[in-house]
């Protein structure tokens, strides 16, 4: 998931590795904090969930919004599911085989699965779905890009289908586990794509006949015939809830108030500043899941300007106490980041964390040695040039990112950097990225696959005019080669080695200044229980139930 720096439907890239168990995140709460009421699950009732953003389109084959996956997941099942150890489990596919050359994935499908409109889920349905994702008229903003080497699918018999790629593609199965690759009823896929933005039909535990209404949300009823939950779920059979309603409430304070007053049962995106308030209320509890993938990072422009010198990059990384600043701005709710990717991303390399330690004296010494001498106004100067750096930021940044930037600005000045924050709109922000007119670029890019490293650091992704994702604009054969080799293997030891090498090289070259690990923070009423998490850290409701 990339989160753009403003409150808008968030672009999201997702291949799942990590499911954060509910129990684990509850254990992270302080002992005094309240939690779900407990007891045995009971069927019945309506759960109302207040989300913070609209989606542009309900169909996750088309949309790139993270909320599209959230709103579609109750309706759509995937071929496979994932657990937090990175293991892929059966779901609508009973089993699968990968050809020796890594090009062909053959799935054996589960018997007896039907779509809620009565259609049978079979090999032809799987083919129809993959073909729909890559069809030009679908104009997929995300899913198609995540199976870019897709060649085609072949129906072998009713319950066997093979999917072929033009090159080995180890990121496929984690992608297939996400809602972006949710299976939809084949006849509905023949409609105009705009129709699917409103109503989609799947095999999932919930059905929504009315579909999604912009700015209002979506209501679902239970699919009583549902009997094919993944083994990773807490129960099997139909969902507990009679009804599920998702409403859209953009204002943080109103969302929180409607939770406290009982108007809704659970809310999305609880601001860190309000976490303590919710925890202190015995009728409410907080649950959170750190999002895997790219952290909220500052990326130096290594192509031009002062950060083309590695000594200046190292000095900026060492000379500012990012960890302390993050702790103070986010009340400890977001963990300080010491790596470009979140620790719960598969093949995370812990060894490179030490490169991000704080040492102000060493930083000052490096700048002195590089010829940057402190001037009269505290800003360093070299050959008459001031040590000035520009950070474009979109006004109204989410998660108080503007507050964070202001604190970093102050710390940078102590070090001798004149850090200028340029307030721009989203268009100008992307334009600056395309033309390279920045010294620092700030963005987060959540995705639950280590392949996110290729997105963020492969030199093929250096922005050239328009939007692209290698924000540091750095070319390194070490990084490029190890990341492309990683796509061609499924061997765990090799993957550990290849992704580890890339992360170490990124640390050695000082091409990223990590800020914080984004966590999805959810608030809920104590009688609302069993809410679980998707791989890319958003809530799911199949296991959810209400006591009383």
């Amino acid at each position, binding site marked *: 998931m*990339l989160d*753009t720096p*403003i409150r*808008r439907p968030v*672009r999201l890239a997702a291949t799942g590795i990590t499911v954060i168990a509910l129990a684990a995140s509850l254990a992270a709460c302080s002992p005094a904090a309240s939690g779900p009421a407990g007891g045995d699950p009971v069927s019945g009732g309506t759960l109302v969930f*207040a989300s913070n953003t*609209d989606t*542009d*389109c309900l169909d996750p084959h*088309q949309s*790139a919004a993270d909320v599209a996956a959230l709103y579609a997941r109750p309706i759509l099942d995937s071929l496979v599911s994932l657990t937090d150890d990175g293991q892929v489990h059966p779901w609508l596919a009973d089993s699968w085989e990968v050809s020796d050359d890594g090009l062909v994935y053959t799935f054996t499908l589960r018997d007896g699965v039907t779509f809620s409109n009565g259609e049978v889920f079979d090999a032809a349905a799987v083919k129809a779905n993959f073909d729909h994702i890559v069809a*030009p008229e679908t*104009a997929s*903003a*995300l899913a198609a*890009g995540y199976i870019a080497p897709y060649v085609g699918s072949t129906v072998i018999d009713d319950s066997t289908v093979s999917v072929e790629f033009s090159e080995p593609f180890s990121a496929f199965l984690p992608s297939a586990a996400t809602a972006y690759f949710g299976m939809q009823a084949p006849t509905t896929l023949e409609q105009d*794509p*705009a129709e699917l*933005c409103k109503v989609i039909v799947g095999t999932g535990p919930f059905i929504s006949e009315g579909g999604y*209404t*912009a*700015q*209002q949300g979506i209501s679902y009823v239970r699919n009583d015939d549902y009997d094919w939950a993944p083994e990773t779920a807490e129960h099997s059979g139909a969902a507990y809830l009679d009804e599920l309603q998702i*409403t*859209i*409430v*953009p*204002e943080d*304070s*109103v969302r929180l*108030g*409607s939770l*406290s*007053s009982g*108007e809704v049962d659970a809310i999305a995106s609880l601001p860190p500043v309000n976490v303590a308030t919710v925890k202190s209320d015995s009728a409410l509890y907080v649950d959170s899941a750190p999002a895997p993938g790219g952290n909220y990072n500052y990326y130096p422009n290594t192509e031009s300007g002062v950060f083309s010198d590695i000594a200046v990059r190292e000095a900026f990384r060492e000379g500012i106490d990012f960890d302390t600043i993050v702790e103070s701005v986010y009340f400890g709710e977001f963990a300080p980041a010491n790596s470009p990717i979140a620790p719960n991303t598969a093949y995370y390399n812990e060894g490179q964390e030490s490169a991000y330690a704080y040492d102000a004296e060493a930083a000052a010494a490096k700048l002195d040695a590089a010829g940057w001498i402190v001037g009269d106004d505290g800003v360093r100067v070299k050959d008459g040039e001031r040590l000035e750096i520009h950070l474009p930021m979109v006004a109204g940044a989410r998660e108080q990112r503007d507050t964070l930037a202001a604190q970093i600005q102050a710390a940078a000045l102590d070090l001798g950097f004149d850090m200028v924050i340029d307030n721009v*709109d*989203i*268009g*100008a*922000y*992307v*334009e600056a990225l*395309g033309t390279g007119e920045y010294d620092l670029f700030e963005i987060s890019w959540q995705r639950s696959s280590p392949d996110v490293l290729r997105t963020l650091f492969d030199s093929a*992704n250096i922005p050239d005019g*328009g*939007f*692209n*994702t290698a924000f540091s604009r750095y070319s390194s054969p070490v990084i490029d080669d190890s990341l492309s080799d990683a796509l061609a293997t499924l061997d765990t030891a090799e993957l550990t080695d290849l992704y580890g090498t890339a992360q170490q090289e990124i640390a050695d070259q000082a091409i990223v200044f990590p800020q914080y690990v984004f966590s999805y923070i959810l608030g809920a009423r104590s009688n609302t229980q069993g809410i679980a998490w998707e791989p890319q850290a958003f809530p799911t409701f199949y296991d959810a139930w209400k006591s009383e």
Partner: protein
Amino acid sequence: MSTSATAEMLVTAPGRKPRGLAQAIMRRVGTAVIVVWGAITASFVALTLMGGDTVQSIAGATVKVTPELREQIIAKYGLDQSLLSQYFTYLGGVLRGDFGTSYSLRRPVLDAVMEQLPNTITLLVSATVFGVVLALAVSILTAHRGPRIHGLFQGLESIGVAVPQFWLGIMLITVFSFGLRLFPSTGANGPIALVLPTIALGLPVAATLSQVLRDSLEKTLDEPFIVTVRARGAGEFVVRVGHALRHSLVSAITLVGWLSGALISGAVIVEQVFSRPGIGRMVFSAVVNRDMPVVLGVVVIAAIFYVVVNTIIDLLYPVIDPRLRS
């Protein structure tokens, strides 16, 4: 004020004898068309001047645009045409009721707007009614009622005019939704969900209107003809509602025309605070996403609304004030 000047012109066209209402209406409608055309042109130019890569905006700000995708988008949206030809294509479309296709919603702008418009219209109408009724009641009850009442209400009105709608909305929600639990804080389900947004949007209107209306009422009450009315034995109610009010309405009605514009902009904020579906919230996210067709579509519809309201008001003057009839 220009509107009342137009009103006089409308009734007594300079240089020749007025030919009646039909001609006046025709002239007024002609002006209205020019205003709407001006609004379309101005917003088209403004959005063009905003710059940025339109193809990137259409694809989504953070989607990588491949050369193939770029070509596809350019062909689909006719971006290879000159700006002037794009402008005329758009204008021609508007005349046929085709406002183009939203970049981010992937559907015709008119469909998207029409889906949300009823919600906004409901809010605007209820806020206007609420504001006008409250202002009338307050001004009639408080005009010339001694310095204490005068001071108290003037103070309240100043607060009402100055208070930001955003803050007012949050306060109303906090007290009446979360505290007393009388009204829902969000959504548009039924009349009960309309109460708080109506107050948040209508209260500043009421405050502005009642300031003007009381001032004008007090002046009227000092007029000699009021003494005559009283001398004939009319009661206070008859004096105020039956005689003074009508005299005072012209200035207030002129203000309602201006307030209709203020209401539309207020709706953007109120819809956001109360999570109410409507075109205000729609245009807010369209601006953020640089969704030009939606921004243009909403501007045109808002301009039409504004022009229609003001035209009706201009035509109302002679009805209210016989002195403005020839």
